[in-house]
C-alpha cells in the first residue's frame, strides 16, 4: 500500500508555495487565503485523523459511530442555519431533512448489505452524505427565498387566481431545486471521462484494484446523488411551508424595489 510520510507531505507543500508565488506574481491578492486554506486543511484533517484513529480501533462500539453521525448532522444543521440567515426555520428543517436522508440512504446501504455496517464505513459514508447534502441545502435555501421574494408579484398573481400555496410556489421550487441539483447530476454524468473522483483516486493510490475502486466509487456517487436530492427536496418543501401562511398567503420577506 502506498504511504505518504510526514516528510513527503512537507515536500507536497511546494505546490502550495507555487500557488502563493503565482498569486504574488500576478497580484491576485490570494496569497494569504491560499496559505490560510492550506494550513486549515492540514490542521483539521490531522485533528480528525487522530480522532478517527481512536474511534476506528477494533472493539470500539458502533454506537460511537452513530453518535459521530448525530454530531455531524447537528453541526451541518447549524452551518446551514448560519449560512442562510434570511431563510426562516432552517435549523429545525435541515435537522429533519438530514436525519430523514441519513435514515433513508444509510438504511439502503447498510440494510441491503451494499457496505458492511462497521465504524469505518459508517463514519466515512455518512461524512460524504452529510457534507454534500449540506452544500446543496445552503444553495436551495437561498435560492427559494430569493426566487419567491424576487418574483413576489408573479407568486401573488397565481395566488390571486385561486392557486394553493403549493401550486403557486411550484415553478419557483422547481427552478431552485434544478439550479442546486444540476451540478451534482452533471458531475455524475461525466465522472471518469474528465476527472477521476477523489475517493477513487485515494483508493487507487492506496493500492486497491481499480475495478474494486470503481465499484466503491460508483456506490458512493449514487449515495451522494440520492442524499443531496432527498435532503434538498425535503428542505425545499419545508421552507415553502415556512414562507406561506396556512390560508395561502405569501409571507416571504418583501424586497425593496
Amino acid at each position: 500500500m502506498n504511504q505518504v510520510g510526514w516528510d513527503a507531505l512537507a515536500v507536497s507543500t511546494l505546490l502550495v508555495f507555487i500557488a502563493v508565488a503565482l498569486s504574488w506574481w500576478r497580484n491576485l491578492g490570494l496569497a494569504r487565503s491560499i496559505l490560510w486554506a492550506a494550513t486549515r486543511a492540514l490542521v483539521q484533517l490531522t485533528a480528525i485523523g487522530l480522532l478517527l484513529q481512536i474511534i476506528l480501533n477494533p472493539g470500539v462500539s458502533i454506537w460511537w459511530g452513530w453518535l459521530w453521525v448525530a454530531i455531524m448532522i447537528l453541526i451541518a444543521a447549524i452551518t446551514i442555519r448560519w449560512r442562510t440567515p434570511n431563510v426562516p426555520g432552517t435549523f429545525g428543517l435541515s435537522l429533519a431533512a438530514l436525519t430523514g436522508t441519513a435514515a433513508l440512504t444509510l438504511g439502503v446501504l447498510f440494510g441491503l448489505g451494499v457496505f458492511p455496517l462497521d465504524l469505518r464505513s459508517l463514519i466515512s459514508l455518512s461524512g460524504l452524505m452529510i457534507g454534500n447534502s449540506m452544500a446543496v441545502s445552503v444553495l436551495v435555501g437561498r435560492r427559494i427565498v430569493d426566487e419567491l421574494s424576487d418574483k413576489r408579484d408573479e407568486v401573488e398573481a397565481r395566488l390571486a387566481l385561486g392557486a394553493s400555496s403549493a401550486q403557486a410556489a411550484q415553478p419557483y421550487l422547481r427552478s431552485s431545486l434544478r439550479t442546486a441539483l444540476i451540478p451534482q447530476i452533471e458531475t455524475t454524468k461525466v465522472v471518469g471521462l474528465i476527472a477521476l473522483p477523489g475517493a477513487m483516486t485515494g483508493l487507487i493510490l492506496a493500492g486497491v484494484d481499480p475495478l474494486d475502486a470503481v465499484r466503491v466509487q460508483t456506490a458512493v456517487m449514487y449515495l451522494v446523488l440520492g442524499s443531496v436530492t432527498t435532503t434538498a427536496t425535503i428542505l425545499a418543501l419545508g421552507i415553502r411551508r415556512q414562507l406561506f401562511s396556512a390560508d395561502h398567503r405569501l409571507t416571504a420577506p418583501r424586497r425593496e424595489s
Partner: protein
Amino acid sequence: MLLTFDQVSLGGDQSHRLANATGEISDRGITALVGPSGAGKSTLLRLANRLEVPDSGTVQFRGHDINTLDPLALRRRVAMVFQRPTPFPGSVMENLCVGDPELNETQAVTLLERVGLAADLLTRDALLLSGGEAQRVCLARALATNPEVVLMDEPTSSLDPAARTDLEKLARSLANSGIPIVWVTHDIAQMQRIADYVLVMIDGAIAHSANATDLEANSSLPVRDFLAGKKL
C-alpha cells in the same frame, strides 16, 4: 353590498397601514378607490382578495365574513389585476389555463376577444408581449376564473396613454356586462373618466364615499383638498 369593510385595521409599515377603515363597495358599475400614495388603497384591495388579513375588524363579501370563506374559492370569485402586468413564463394559452386548467381553445379565444385581443396571440410567448397586451392577458386570465368582481390595483400605471385609454374602456364594458370593477388610482382625472362610485382614502381610513356625480357634497376638508389636486 358587494364588499363591506367594518373597522378594519392593519399594522405593518406605513404604506400598508389601515386604521379603522369602514365603508362599502357597490355590486354595480365601477367603484374608484382613490387617495394619496400610502393611504392604504392597495391594502384595502388585497384584503378583499385575502392576500392580507386584518389585525382587527371584518371584511365581508356579499354579507359573509371572508375569514369564514375558503380563501382559494374566494379568490376565484374576487379576481385581481395588479399594478404591473404579471405574465407567467409560457404561451398566452398557458397563462389563461392557470386561471382555468379546463379551458379549451374556443373558450380561450372568446376570453381574448373579451379583452380586445386577437386570437393569434394565443400561441405567443407571454413574456414578449407589450405592456398593454400583457395587462390585457392578465385581465383575461383573471376573467377565466369566472369572477363576480374584478379588483384592479392601479392597472394602468405602467402603460402608455393609448393602452391606458383602451384598458379604461375595457373596464367600462365589463362593468356594463354586469361584472363590477373596483379600480384603485391616485389619478383624479382617471377617476373622473371611469368612476360611477368613489371611495376616498386618507391616512388608512375611508374618509368619504359618494356617487361620482355629487362627489364633493358633505366631504371633509382633506377630501376636498385631495380632489382639488392639493398635495396632502
